[in-house]
């Protein structure tokens, strides 16, 4: 445990020194990234050891905050998430050092590194906190640090909007967590996690609050709206960390809360499965409609959060229906998928950063043919993309397979409710997998295959060595995760590695088949919109795509414009209406607005007086 504290100190110290150094960009990056790398490596040791040995390490100290105490513990559940946090942060720091390097002259990099390292420390603190006050402090620190990182590019109007959407969403979510901990504390009489126990009739309320509060961090539909705006705005190593690790803090919180509540009720599992299925399908569908590469990846994160939640839902269902196989497979699959998703989504976001870095744009409709310019980046994208669709033999397949197994176990052996839920999960997982594959094929095809759609691609180049190293490391970790998982998967990995090592000279180069037309141009190929159109039209009830086609009449039409956009109905309809209604309600308070400070003093004093009278009447 001391090693863990030392690791946190090293990470935070590196960030603080980077902030104070103020000097050269190289020194700042060395301090910030160096601290994060060294600290994460140190922190992995106790985390792995706890997971491998199944032990629990504790440490505590008094704290002056009311009801607070600095009690920390690493148990195997924390350890899984600690490994995600430290492992991904380590690679993200390596990547970030290269990614931010070109900004060296233009921007001071002290504060981005400071907030990056603070984000890592706060996430680690969230996973080990054993006191509600400490947990909430770490949680808020995490939200604020990531807010400042999202606002990195604050000169940009869109980024500022994204930042405020994120800030509002994260605080709304946190409000639910406050309520949840208050209820738990009333039952326990203390804010220590070890004293929490199922508060009887209120367990359902606690669970619902946890789902909303943690679900908004995890990006579950309909609480996901901040995700597709915040992720594209943040620098890519931060998007990788937020999407790969920070989202998982919501998953961790949900799982941790379920440990307080002991006996899951039937409807919890069903609710989680429903929310998970909704998020998975909608996320995959919306990802198909995006032109911004990072936005598409952000929606893919929503999808994967949905898959993880379906796994947790199956686990809870299994636990409530006394089906240990379903429970074990469901929770196991969810945890493993959380880990795997951190790896491949980290890789894909870093990849998107490399593309944006190389071409200066993230719009897929302006890219194309990058494979010829940046074969390494392209291959890594395809690798990560294959994993995220759950294609065997990669790690995404194994974890999704575990969730499938849980669903099958429920469908075959369970009672009617479990069987129905299991069948539903199988159907939704299959739909999601197909849509995810379409999304990856679309993104990969539009960005890396075919011919260049704009001049931006011409100057593209491979990213620097540290960015490549980080991506390669993640790819290696993915392969290892797949290979070291059940022996079957390990066997399947071997032929792939062998195939990848085959002699490339045997391939003959020639022009792409041009359908007999001798002068193909980049405008004749499929665009990302046209690729997605059949699918998005099929789901038009959910997606409501807006297509516009402007054709000129005549025998030889010269100019034809086709556009195809997909909005997020949750954002555009649900929240807009909700907040408009809220604004109308709050507008009625305008009558109480006054020009003078006196009147506000009067309100405050009056409220205090009323509270005093009320308190005394009650006593």
């Amino acid at each position, binding site marked *: 445990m001391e090693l863990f504290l030392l690791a946190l100190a090293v990470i935070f110290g590196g960030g603080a020194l980077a902030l104070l150094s103020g000097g050269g960009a190289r020194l700042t990056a060395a301090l910030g990234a160096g601290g994060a790398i060294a600290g994460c490596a140190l922190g992995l040791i106790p985390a792995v050891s706890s997971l491998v040995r199944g032990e629990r390490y504790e440490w505590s100290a008094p704290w002056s905050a009311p009801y607070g105490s600095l009690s920390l513990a690493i148990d195997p559940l924390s350890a899984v998430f600690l490994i995600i946090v430290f492992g991904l942060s380590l690679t993200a720091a390596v990547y970030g050092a290269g990614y931010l390097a070109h900004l060296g002259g233009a921007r001071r990099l002290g504060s981005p590194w400071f907030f990056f390292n603070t984000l890592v420390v706060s996430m680690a603190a969230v996973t080990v906190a054993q006191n509600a006050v400490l947990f909430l402090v770490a949680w808020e620190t995490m939200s604020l640090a990531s807010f400042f990182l999202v606002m990195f590019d604050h000169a940009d109007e869109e980024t500022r909007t994204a930042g405020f959407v994120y800030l509002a969403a994260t605080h709304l979510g946190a409000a639910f967590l406050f309520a949840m901990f208050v209820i738990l504390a009333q039952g326990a009489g203390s804010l220590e996690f070890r004293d929490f126990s199922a508060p009887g009739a209120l367990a359902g309320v606690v669970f619902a609050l946890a789902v909303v509060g943690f679900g908004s961090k995890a990006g579950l539909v309909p609480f996901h709206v901040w995700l597709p705006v915040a992720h594209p705005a943040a620098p890519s190593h931060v998007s990788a960390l937020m999407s790969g690790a920070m989202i998982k803090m919501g998953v961790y919180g949900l799982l941790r809360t379920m440990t307080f509540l002991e006996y899951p009720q039937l409807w919890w599992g069903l609710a989680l499965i429903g929310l998970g299925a909704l998020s998975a399908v909608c996320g995959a569908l919306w990802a198909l409609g995006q032109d911004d590469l990072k936005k598409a990846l952000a929606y893919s994160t929503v999808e994967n959060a949905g898959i993880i939640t379906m796994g947790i839902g199956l686990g809870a269902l299994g636990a409530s229906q006394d089906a240990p196989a379903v429970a074990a497979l469901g929770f196991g699959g969810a945890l493993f998928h959380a880990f795997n998703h951190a790896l491949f989504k980290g890789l894909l976001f870093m990849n998107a950063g490399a593309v944006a870095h190389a071409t200066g744009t993230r719009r897929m409709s302006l890219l194309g043919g990058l494979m010829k310019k940046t074969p390494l980046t392209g291959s890594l994208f395809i690798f990560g993309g294959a994993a995220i669709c759950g294609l065997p033999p990669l790690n995404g397949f194994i974890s999704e397979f575990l969730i499938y197994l849980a669903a099958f176990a429920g469908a075959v052996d369970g009672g009617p409710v479990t069987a129905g839920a299991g069948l539903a999960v199988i159907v939704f997982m299959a739909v999601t997998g197909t849509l995810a594959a379409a999304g990856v094929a679309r993104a990969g095809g539009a960005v890396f295959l075919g011919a260049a759609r704009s001049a931006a691609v011409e100057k593209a180049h491979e990213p620097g060595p540290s960015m490549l190293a980080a991506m390669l490391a993640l790819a290696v970790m993915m392969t290892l995760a797949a290979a070291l998982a059940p022996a079957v998967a390990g066997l399947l990995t071997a032929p792939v590695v062998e195939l990848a090592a085959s002699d490339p000279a045997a391939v003959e180069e020639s022009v792409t088949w041009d359908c007999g037309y001798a002068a193909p141009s980049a405008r004749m190929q499929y665009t990302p919109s046209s690729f997605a159109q059949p699918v998005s039209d099929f789901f038009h009830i959910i997606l409501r795509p807006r297509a516009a086609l402007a054709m000129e009449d005549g025998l030889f039409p010269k100019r034809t414009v086709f556009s195809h956009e997909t909005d997020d109905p949750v954002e555009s309809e649900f929240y807009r209406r909700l907040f408009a209604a809220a604004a109308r309600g709050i507008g009625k308070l305008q009558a109480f607005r006054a*020009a003078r400070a006196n009147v506000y*003093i009067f309100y405050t*004093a009056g409220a205090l007086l009323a509270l005093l*009278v009320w308190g*005394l009447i009650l006593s």
Partner: protein
Amino acid sequence: MADMALALVPQLLNLIFMALLITNLYLLGSSRLGSLIWTAGAQGALLAALPLFPQVGEFSTHAVILAAGSGMLKGAVIPWLLLWALRDANIRRDVEPLVGYSLSLTFGVAVTGLSFWFAEKIAGGLHAGEGAPFVAVGVSMALCGMFLIASRTKALTQVIGYLTLENGIYVFGVSLAARQPFVVEMGIFLDIFVFIFVGGIVMFRINRTFDRIEKGRAPTEDAP
């Protein structure tokens, strides 16, 4: 003779409480700034005597120093400063209250009644049977002071309101002085705050009102 004097002590204390409440009501009902300041000074001088009573605690040098210090400050220095500020700012009356004088007086009476009810409710919790009137008078003064701040527009009246609020805290605190010296120390900090207020009025010659906090609304109440 000495016995008779001792028997008179509780009567004297009650007399002081009554005088405090009357000054309180006078502050709410008067518009002349000069007499407001004199009343506030008288209130301060009356308060200063409180630490000397046996109901508060043992007669000690600490109590004497507290009485002398607060008497100097509340009864002499601050009123003198305020009068100086008044002369400097060249105003005589607060003619633009947000709440009228008779309504303010009604409020004062209601709040005084309410305070005695409070005192009865919470005095038990404070383990101070004899503290009940202290609590009642203190709360009533604090609430009236708060009301003055909220309902008057002139900076000087608001300072007096603040002073009354702070005097109320002092009365409340002095009954606990033995156990809670902290409350009394806080009272001294509040006095320093009043100094800064008065200093601000003198230096910036705020002869009218504290500025409006909101722009963009027609200044109806403030037209000269």
